Structures are given as structure tokens and as C-alpha cells.
């Protein structure tokens, strides 16, 4: 036991968790914590320029590293500015620990200056949240917060710390462990494994559908091993991109509204859908009545809530994906399954080649498909791609061939424009040796472009490639396709000169006006030794096609 105030104890607890970086902004109700930060030796604080940027950066940090990302803000507006980022992390199961100062306990409820009821505001958008009124509770709560954020299905946790708790002194000790009343079922049962093996053995046209749960469980090696063992094509969700190298012969790419046609056809035709770490999002399934209509479905997920939520399943395994896949692989070894290169796999491989989307456009302005191809031509497998949201995101999902998990970071569930740039910043802080590229649209980039100041100040050398079509492109696409081309509220008109914008902040700015300029300019940006913005004007009329309309059937996409 050592006497210390709550602020000092907070950093002791964060050190015990191995926290190395915090993204945040100070304010009136969090000054004691920032005062303790002044003496902190092991934790680097990165001052973002907006709290939303801090939340997304912590989220990007968590997704790239697999470790919790931490953000810190003041009360009131500082804390409410976190909410979009926290919900974003919640929807995509990212372990973010968000901490905010709060007005003094006795002032809570009096509408004090910069008071916001964060316990209520954070409650529906976190895995769990706390307020710490007594400093004696702080060490155990911080420990619990990290445990909850990372255990089972990961997710964000918010801790609200009133100013009196930050200042209050007590004899405190950071506990090595805390007791949890909840028991998580991590291990599959032999019965669950056995039936899955039987179903796999009897399937003639199986497909594996893998998602973010495989990433969080670090089960990518097992997933690839299983796919190879039973010679089964793999489709992924957006958040599953990279769990199997996308140049693998069995990888069919992403499924869903903007999925690869081959992936959507494979799911429609399969007789067994082996789903692991996915939640059957409406963007992935389309019309659920026609989703995998011929298939028996196995669903492996650590969260029982996800099983049977929207899709009826024939067999469920509530378990950690890695443990379940290991169990199935071990069981399969005694089965005759090896080397089954069926007609089904050959057909999938053939369709994959035939239906491969075109990228060899030479037009000016550049077609976005070609733009991404050029960007990827400069990068190797260690590059981490983040995306903004909308058309740029779906083009990235289509044309970025990702080889490793945690190398494609995108806002899936919430679809948060403005996520990609601060997330790239977080990913770069977590993985300083990897090139980090944010594939952005002009609309999304402007939603958190203030973080250019942060990346320049802290020499976080990420490159934002802006696919600039001067539109909120995905909405424009829906209006073109489903609202008789009545383009309402989507024209961005005179967008800023992104080269000058970058330079104004002290970043590298460049423009690639035709396809052949993209690769050389990107190389220049990467070699500049600065954060960079590469403006790529693209064809404003290009849409993301094929596309399955909302609620439509996966096998009935709009082609043109």
C-alpha cells in the first residue's frame, strides 16, 4: 500500500496493464490526471485535435495491435465527443478503454459547468461503463475495465472519474487480478465439435464464412489450415478481410451488398455454410430469406447473443474461434478429408477468375478501381490499410488484396465517416514500422482532417490517399440507382485544395491527376518522411458495382 491520489493511481493501474500510449485532450475536469501525466515516464500522450479523433485513434491502435487502445478526455463536451468513436468501437468489437474526467461528485446532477451524464450516455454504447466516486475503488475498477474490454467478445469500456476522485488520496495497491462473477464459455464441447465435423464431412459444396471474430481470436492460421484441409472456399465479411491471404486459391473475397460476385454466388449455391466469428450483418446477407438457401449453417461465435439473432442456424458452437477451429482440425485428422479438390472448388476457382472485377482502366480522370490498383502496386503485405466510409471504403474492400489479419481497418458496423484518418494515426502509433495508408473520400477526410495537426506534430507518418470525386459518393450512388438520379445534398462543390491543406499543416501534399502518376507520387509521399496527403481526382460518375440493393438477394446484383 502506498499513499497516492486517484490520478497517480490511474497511471499506476495503466502501467500495470502495459499501456504505452494514450490519445486525448485535457480540460477543466481532468487537470489533476494531466498533472499526474506530467510526471509519467512510460506512457506517451498524443494530443489529438478533437476527442472523436482520440477515440478513433485508440480504436485503430487496438485493431492494429490487438491490445486495448486508451483515450482520455475532460467532462462534458470532451466526453460527449468520444461517443461516436466509442459506438464505432462497440459495433466492431474493438477493446477501447475510454477515460474521462467528470465534475466533482457532489456537483453531479446540478447542471454544473461542463457536466454531462456520461454514465447514461455511455451505457448503451459500451460493453460496460463505470463511474468512480471513491478513490479506494479506482484500482479494482481500472483493472476490471481492461479485463472486460478484452475478455470474450472484446468491446469498449468507459470510466468516468469525478474530479474529487482524481484528487482524493488513500493508501492504494493495484491488484494483479480481480474476481469476476461472470464465467465465459471459451471452450467448445466435444459434442459441438463432433457434429461440426460430421456436417463438414458430409458437405459436398461447403463454404467458410469468416469475420472479425477470427481476427480478435488470432485464429487466422487455424482458419487457413482448416480451409486447406477440407479444401473449402472462404468468403469473409468486411472485418474478416485478411484472415486468409486474399491471393490464396481458396479465398473468394468479401460477400454482401458490395461483395465479390463469386463470394455471393458461392454462398447462394453452397450446401454448408461454416460461419465463424461473424454476425450475419444485413449488409452481408441481403434478404435473409434467400441467404444461403440450400445450406445447412454452422455458426461459431463466442457471444451466444449472435447465434440465431437474424439467421436460423443448424448447429451452434459457443466458443472462442481459435479453440473451436483447433478442436475441429484435431478431430478432422482422423477423418478422410484431406486433399478433396472437388468440382465445387474447381468451379469456384474458375468463377473467381471469370468474375474478377476489371481494374485496367486508362481514363482520365482516373477510375477508382485503377487508383486502388496503383496504390496497392507500391505496397507490400506489411502495409496496413485503413479506410474512410462510403464508396472509397467499398472500392478499398474490393481492390485491396490483403494478406494478413489486422492489416485492413475499416468502420464496419457503424459506418463512421471520418474514422479512417484518426484510425490510421492509431494504427501507425501501434505499428510504427508498417506503412499505414488511409484510403479516403473527399467527404470523409474532411470530417476529421484536423488530425493533420496531430500527425505532423507527433511525426506519425501516415498517408491519406483521397479518392476525390467531389461528392458524398455512396449517397449519390443510391440516389442515382434508387431515386431517379435526384442528387440531393450530395455535391461537395468546391472542395478544398488538399495539397495546400496538407502543406498548410506542414504535411506533404501531392496530386496524381492521371493513373500513371499515382504510384510515383505515392512513393514520393512514403519517402517524404512526413505525414502525407495524396489527392487523386477520380471519375465523379463511377459507382461501386455490382451492388446488391438493400434487402435484395445476393445472387441478384445490379450490374450496371
Amino acid at each position, binding site marked *: 500500500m502506498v499513499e497516492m491520489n486517484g490520478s497517480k493511481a490511474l497511471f499506476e493501474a495503466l502501467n500495470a496493464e502495459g499501456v504505452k500510449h494514450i490519445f486525448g485532450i485535457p480540460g477543466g475536469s481532468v487537470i489533476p490526471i494531466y498533472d499526474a501525466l506530467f510526471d509519467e515516464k512510460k506512457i506517451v500522450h498524443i494530443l489529438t485535435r478533437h476527442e472523436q479523433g482520440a477515440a478513433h485513434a485508440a480504436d485503430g491502435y487496438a485493431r492494429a495491435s490487438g491490445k486495448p487502445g486508451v483515450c482520455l478526455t475532460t467532462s462534458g463536451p470532451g466526453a460527449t465527443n468520444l461517443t461516436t468513436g466509442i459506438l464505432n468501437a462497440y459495433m466492431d468489437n474493438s477493446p477501447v478503454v475510454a477515460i474521462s474526467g467528470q465534475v466533482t461528485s457532489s456537483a453531479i446532477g446540478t447542471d454544473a459547468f461542463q457536466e454531462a451524464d456520461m*454514465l*447514461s450516455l455511455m*451505457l*448503451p454504447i459500451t*460493453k*460496460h461503463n463505470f463511474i468512480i466516486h471513491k478513490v479506494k475503488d479506482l484500482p479494482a475498477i481500472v483493472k476490471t475495465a481492461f479485463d*472486460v474490454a478484452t475478455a470474450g467478445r472484446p468491446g469498449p469500456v468507459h470510466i468516468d472519474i469525478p474530479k474529487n476522485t482524481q484528487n482524493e488520496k488513500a493508501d492504494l495497491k493495484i491488484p494483479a487480478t480481480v474476481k469476476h*462473477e*461472470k464465467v465465459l464459455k471459451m471452450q467448445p464441447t466435444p459434442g459441438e465439435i463432433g457434429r461440426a465435423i460430421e456436417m463438414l464431412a458430409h458437405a459436398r459444396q461447403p463454404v467458410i464464412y469468416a469475420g472479425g471474430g477470427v481476427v480478435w481470436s488470432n485464429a487466422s492460421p487455424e482458419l487457413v489450415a482448416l480451409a486447406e484441409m477440407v479444401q473449402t472456399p472462404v468468403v469473409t465479411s468486411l472485418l474478416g478481410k485478411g484472415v486468409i491471404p486474399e491471393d490464396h486459391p481458396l479465398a473468394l473475397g468479401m460477400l454482401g451488398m458490395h461483395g465479390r460476385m463469386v463470394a455471393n454466388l458461392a454462398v447462394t449455391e453452397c450446401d454448408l455454410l461454416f460461419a465463424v466469428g461473424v454476425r450475419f450483418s444485413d449488409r452481408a446477407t441481403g434478404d435473409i430469406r434467400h441467404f444461403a438457401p440450400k445450406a445447412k449453417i454452422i455458426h461459431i461465435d463466442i*457471444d*451466444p*447473443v449472435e447465434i*440465431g*439473432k437474424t439467421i436460423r442456424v443448424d448447429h451452434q458452437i459457443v466458443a472462442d474461434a481459435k479453440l473451436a477451429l483447433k478442436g475441429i482440425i484435431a478431430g478432422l485428422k482422423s477423418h478422410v478429408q484431406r486433399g478433396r479438390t472437388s468440382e465445387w472448388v474447381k468451379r469456384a476457382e474458375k468463377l473467381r477468375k471469370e468474375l474478377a472485377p476489371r481494374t485496367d482502366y486508362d481514363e482520365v480522370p482516373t477510375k477508382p478501381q485503377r487508383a486502388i490498383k496503383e496504390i496497392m502496386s507500391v505496397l507490400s503485405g506489411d502495409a496496413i490499410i485503413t479506410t474512410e466510409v462510403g464508396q472509397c471504403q467499398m472500392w478499398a474492400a474490393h481492390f485491396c488484396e490483403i494478406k494478413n489479419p489486422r492489416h485492413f481497418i475499416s468502420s464496419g458496423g457503424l459506418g463512421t465517416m471520418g474514422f479512417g484518418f484518426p484510425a490510421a494515426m492509431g494504427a501507425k502509433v501501434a505499428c510504427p514500422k508498417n506503412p499505414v495508408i488511409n484510403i479516403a473520400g473527399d467527404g470523409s477526410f474532411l470530417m476529421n482532417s484536423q488530425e493533420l495537426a496531430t500527425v505532423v506534430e507527433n511525426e506519425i507518418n501516415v498517408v491519406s490517399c483521397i479518392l476525390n470525386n467531389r461528392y458524398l459518393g455512396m449517397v449519390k450512388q443510391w440516389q442515382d440507382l434508387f431515386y431517379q438520379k435526384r442528387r440531393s445534398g450530395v455535391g461537395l462543390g468546391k472542395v478544398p485544395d488538399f495539397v495546400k491543406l496538407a502543406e498548410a499543416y506542414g504535411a506533404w501534399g501531392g496530386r496524381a491527376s492521371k493513373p500513371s502518376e499515382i504510384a510515383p507520387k505515392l512513393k514520393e509521399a512514403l519517402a517524404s518522411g512526413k505525414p502525407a496527403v495524396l489527392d487523386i481526382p477520380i471519375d465523379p460518375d463511377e459507382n461501386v458495382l455490382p451492388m446488391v440493393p438493400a434487402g435484395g438477394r445476393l445472387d441478384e446484383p445490379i450490374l450496371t
Partner: protein
Amino acid sequence: MKNRIFSILCQNIPGVMMRITRDFTRRQINLDSITVGVEPSGLARIILMFRADDHMAEFMQKVLTRLEPIIKVDVIDPEEGVVRVVALIKTKKLAGDEHWKVVEKIERAGGKIVDSSGGAILAELSGDNEEVENIINALGREIVTEVARSGRVYISKKIG
């Protein structure tokens, strides 16, 4: 849509009810009854009643079980235990024969007179929801002016 009863064991800390109720609100489910008590262990026991189809009831059980402060959610079959509500009723001012008739009716139905010093009768009724409802209806809304009713309380017949 059937009547459902959940018996929820959870930490006895502020905010648990809010976490629970918002999960119902969001899915447009109306809670018919909420009762909270503290168990000898110090944990809280919440009894919830609502109407939902089988799929939604199963889903809500899993959704609530996922909440951090909740330890266990049991789906109750009313047949396996005892469900009770308690109601306190107040009558209008009664005198003479009418007073005694009402007292007799309440006592015959198993109710208990709690107070009648002011001329009105305050009585305590208990039973399953229907029984309590029947007594109140038998007395008549002319006579009964106020009803304060508890949520359902439940205890299982199982031993151990």
C-alpha cells in the same frame, strides 16, 4: 406472444435496472411488472414480466445475460413455483351496514383489514394477479378508490 417471467440474479449496484430496461425499450417491449429484492447473499434478485414470442424471449435472455452486472437469468415457469402480487386498497368512507359488508367481503376473500380508523377501509390483499383483480372487481370500483399494487414476486418450489 406469451407472458414471460425472468428471474435475474445481479450485482446490487446503481444502474442495473437502467441497463436492463433500455434493452427492452429499444426492442419495443413493455415491461408489465418489475420487482427487486436483495438476496441473503447481498446480490439482487429482479423479477420481470413481459410479453414476447419464443424467439424474442430467448434472445432477451441472452441479451440480459451478456450485461456485466448480471450473473444469471432464469426463465420461470409459473407452475414450478409460487407467484404472488400484494395489493393495498382504500375504500371510500363507509358507514354502518355498508362498512361491515365490505369488511366481511374482504375477510372472506382472504384479505386483511389494515386500518379503518378514518371511516375508509385500508386492506391488504394477496394472491396471484387474477385473484387480486377478482377481489377488487367484486368490491366494485364505486367502493374501491385507490389501489397500490406490487409487481410479481416469485419463489421456486425446488429445494436446494
